[in-house]
């Protein structure tokens, strides 16, 4: 009988072979999977377990508040306040333009910032600091924070963070010295001084914040947080609290600083606030013994608190706008000016020390002097008659010093032309070394300098004696800062120590205990003959106290010994610049003050009255605004 296929005995040898092959394939596949599992779970288990742990743990850095900055008696000048800020991580924004716009449109009513403004802020701020968070709005209400966090899926890339903002309780006071802070940039991170500082840390960008960043910065806190695949926090693993930065104590005296700023406003007639087209000015007060800066101001000024909020490019430009007086510029260290007759101190030291003249050398001052084919005149052609050094300084005889300038031209000591050499020794033409970044170094015009320019066809004439004559009275190409002036006068006042000025005094903990004294570079010493020094200081003393002294009327009735020198710098295309440098000896608290007022006229008219007001504050003398009438340079 025919066996139908379906009833055929199924297991034939051929089928058995095929089933065996199928079983072999199955065995092979299971073996592969088993070996793979063994490799993953037993051989690589530790490594993959570490990956799993790395997956779930995020390090969240919480910023540390920066250290406070206080004045020499511990009064707070800069501290912090806590703000809740709505920020955007630009890297996580939707790439699609329309989606991004939609996000801005959703965010706009929540934080009350216009869509166009959000868009501009994101673009501008992320251009400045590519990896930093973009701050859209600060000081938002808790309700805003909750609203955004409860709808995180509708606000991708938007975060609400607690941030520390710099706060300046004294507003405009010493605004230019602190500098600004901001998130560390990619270039900063490569610099030595910021080695190891993590991304996102707030660091000093400028000014004292930059110089002393190492102390002020503090240590950010770190929290290890367990997160899920969507980045949501599910629990904390470990926490290190942020550590506030150290407190920086300055040598600045807040009272003197305030008095200085008010004095400039009153005497220099400089409006305190920025915004209008106005004159500039600056002052420096310093302890001549050690270079501690007691006050430093620049005009026009601004309220530092504007830096606590994100600053728009336009506002920043306004702060640097020359037509508005560039309030951001610290004229005390960046302002390069001819100094007028205040420079006669340097000429006097040079002429006496090099033996060009003796203290008793008498020169006739008929009111003008012909040098080459130029007639150099005193201001208003005033004739001072036959005078020696002390009197020449007291009345500020230009003719006397023109003669010295003429006679010094080409006279060299071991290191160069005597006038230029002594200017350099007293600190001109190079940075003073103050603890502020990027200080201007200025210029001492010399034959080498001008002839080099002439050779390169950058000027129309080579060096001539007239250049030296101009330099002898602080005119011509001389460029110096008020700070350099204060250093030079301090050197003469203290007997030859060219101090390194500094604002930072010491680093303290939050309770005011000293952690570290700030040591500035040691002072250089120049040798000034005691007899000559007496004559020069005598001349300065006479200037404030004797009949005909250039600032005698300004300091009339002041009641304390003041040594001072007026300066009236001629500047091309504008009114004369008023200068005054004073030294007030005192056993405990001697002080040198240098002040200048752009377009302020004669030295006695603006700068000297301002200095008197500052000295009044310093010594507790009744403040009185006395404008001098001396028309001398």
């Amino acid at each position: 009988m025919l066996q139908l296929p379906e009833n055929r005995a199924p297991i034939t040898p051929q089928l058995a072979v095929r089933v065996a092959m199928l079983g072999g394939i199955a065995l092979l596949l299971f073996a592969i999977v088993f070996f793979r599992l063994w490799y993953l779970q037993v051989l690589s288990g530790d490594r993959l377990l570490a990956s799993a742990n790395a997956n779930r743990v995020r390090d969240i850095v919480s910023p540390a508040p920066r250290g406070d900055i206080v004045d020499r008696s511990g009064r707070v000048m800069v501290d912090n306040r806590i703000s809740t800020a709505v920020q955007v991580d630009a890297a996580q924004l939707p790439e699609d333009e329309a989606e991004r716009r939609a996000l801005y449109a959703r965010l706009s009513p929540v934080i009350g910032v216009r869509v166009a403004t959000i868009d501009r802020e994101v673009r501008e701020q992320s251009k400045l600091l590519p990896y930093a968070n973009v701050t859209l709005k600060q000081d938002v209400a808790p309700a805003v924070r909750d609203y955004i966090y409860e709808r995180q899926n509708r606000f991708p890339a938007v975060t609400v963070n607690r941030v520390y903002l710099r706060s300046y309780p004294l507003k405009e006071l010493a605004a230019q010295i602190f500098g600004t802070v901001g998130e560390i940039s990619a270039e900063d991170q490569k610099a030595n001084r910021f080695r190891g500082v993590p991304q996102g840390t707030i660091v000093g960008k400028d000014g004292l914040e930059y110089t002393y960043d190492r102390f002020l910065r503090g240590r950010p806190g770190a929290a290890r947080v367990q997160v899920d695949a969507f980045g949501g926090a599910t629990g904390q693993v470990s926490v290190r609290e942020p550590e506030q930065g150290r407190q920086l104590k300055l040598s600045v005296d807040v009272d003197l600083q305030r008095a200085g700023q008010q004095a400039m406003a009153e005497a220099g007639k400089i409006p305190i606030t920025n915004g209008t087209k106005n004159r500039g000015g600056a002052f420096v007060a310093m302890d001549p013994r050690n270079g501690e800066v007691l006050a430093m101001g620049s005009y026009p000024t601004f309220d530092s608190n504007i830096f606590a909020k994100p600053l728009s490019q336009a506002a920043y430009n306004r702060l640097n706008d020359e037509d508005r007086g560039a309030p951001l510029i610290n004229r005390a260290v960046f302002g390069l000016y001819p100094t007028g007759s205040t420079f006669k101190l340097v000429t006097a030291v040079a002429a006496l020390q090099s033996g060009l003249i003796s203290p008793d050398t008498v020169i006739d001052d008929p009111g003008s002097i012909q040098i080459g084919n130029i007639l150099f005149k005193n201001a208003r052609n005033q004739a001072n008659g036959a005078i020696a050094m002390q009197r020449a300084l007291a009345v500020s005889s230009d003719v006397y010093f023109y003669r010295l300038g003429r006679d010094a031209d080409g006279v060299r000591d071991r290191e160069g032309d005597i006038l230029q050499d002594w200017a350099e020794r007293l600190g001109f033409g190079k940075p003073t070394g103050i603890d502020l970044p990027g200080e201007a170094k200025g210029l001492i015009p010399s034959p080498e300098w001008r002839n080099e320019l002439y050779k390169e066809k950058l000027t129309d004439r080579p060096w001539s004696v007239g250049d030296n004559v101009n330099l002898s009275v602080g005119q011509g190409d001389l460029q110096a800062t008020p700070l350099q002036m204060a250093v030079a006068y301090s050197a003469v006042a203290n007997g030859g120590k060219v101090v390194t000025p500094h604002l930072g005094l010491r680093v303290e903990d939050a309770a005011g205990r000293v952690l570290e004294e700030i040591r500035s570079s040691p002072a250089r010493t120049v040798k000034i003959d005691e007899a000559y020094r007496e004559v020069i200081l005598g001349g300065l003393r006479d200037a404030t106290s004797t009949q005909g002294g250039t600032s005698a009327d300004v300091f009339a009735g002041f009641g304390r010994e003041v040594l001072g020198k007026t300066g009236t710098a001629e500047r091309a295309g504008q009114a004369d610049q008023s200068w005054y440098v004073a030294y007030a000896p005192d056993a405990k608290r001697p002080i040198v003050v240098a002040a200048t007022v752009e377009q302020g006229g004669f030295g006695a008219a603006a700068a000297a009255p301002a200095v008197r007001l500052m000295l009044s504050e310093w010594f507790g003398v009744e403040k009185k605004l006395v404008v001098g009438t001396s028309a001398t340079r």
Partner: protein
Amino acid sequence: MTTQNPIQRNVGELARAQRGPLRFDVLLAAAVIGLLACSLITIQAATTDDVAGQPHFYLYRQLAYAIVGLGLMFALSRIDYSRLRELKYGLYVAMIGLITLVILIGGTTRGSRRSFFLPFFSFQPSELGKLLLILALSAFMVDRARRLHDRDTTARVMLIALFPAMLVMLQPDLGTGLVFVVIALATLFIAGTPGRHFAGLAAVGAVAVAFTLVAAPAVGVQVLKPYQMDRLTAFLNPSQDPGAEGYQQAQSRIAIGSGEKTGRGADEATQTRLDFLPEHHTDFVFAVVGERFGFLGAAIVLSLYALLIWRTLRILTLAKNLYGALIAGGIVAMLLFQVFVNVGMTVGIMPITGVPLPLMSYGGSSVIVTLMAIGVLQSIYAQARVSAASKGRVLTF
């Protein structure tokens, strides 16, 4: 009475064999129950936090699917599968109809139309299609059993399988489509198709693959959807794009590896619990086993699959007729392919194709259809027992 005469004993055996309790493969059933238990434990471990307020949401549903599936399995094991042969056209038409219908009116999940959303569960016709294809294709093969050497036979079998396979790939569901192809190849192989036919098929397949992956995109025709291409290439080069397709596999590898020898505790299984592991109760359920229960747990699950495959192969050899053998061959190929592709995917040696792990992955269609296939296997076993008993042959386990 202390002794039985031989005739009485023989009758008694026959009666016992026909009565039932012995008419199913105990070890096969044990493997199935064991895998279902593993599935429930794993799904509970993976999905505790997935539905807020309902920690047992997926557990209860999977349990319900298992109970329904076990019921269907029992029912199928009690009928004679041979009668299904007569229904081959109906089965095939039903399969094509369902698959076509789902493409036309099915619900969309992540860009593909695979399911009908029914009130109690979403039904995937392609899952049922696997079993229907096995039954119909085996029947067709039996009809052609005497003409195996005709190229025509091989070609027809392949076309019968490739047509629904293409439809499934259109959904698109590449993985299930490949299962259809593997079932066809296994059916041909078990039936005894000559080796040269397989060589020819391999050549045609190679040309087709080359055309799909290289030639067609070069002239601008996208046969595969971009995400399918990405998945396939991400597997080949996982480090190239750890953010997207490679991410899933990287997280799966980390999950499995972090389980080490004995697994991480319920709280420590962070890859699963914190959602780093995608699809942790469906396609990547094996990675949960690996993380939670370690090499030990994974080995137990794999051993249960090995038991399942072994018993299925054994049933293949016992089958009373060619139809039964072919069905068992199709089922063993389906199970083996799915297990290897799915587990291979989670351990990073196979591309991501979205093939569920039989009996382990959460999902009504997959669980119920796999249990129905097991029911058919039990039927083949039972019929073999009856047939053998009636012939007086002695069977051993």
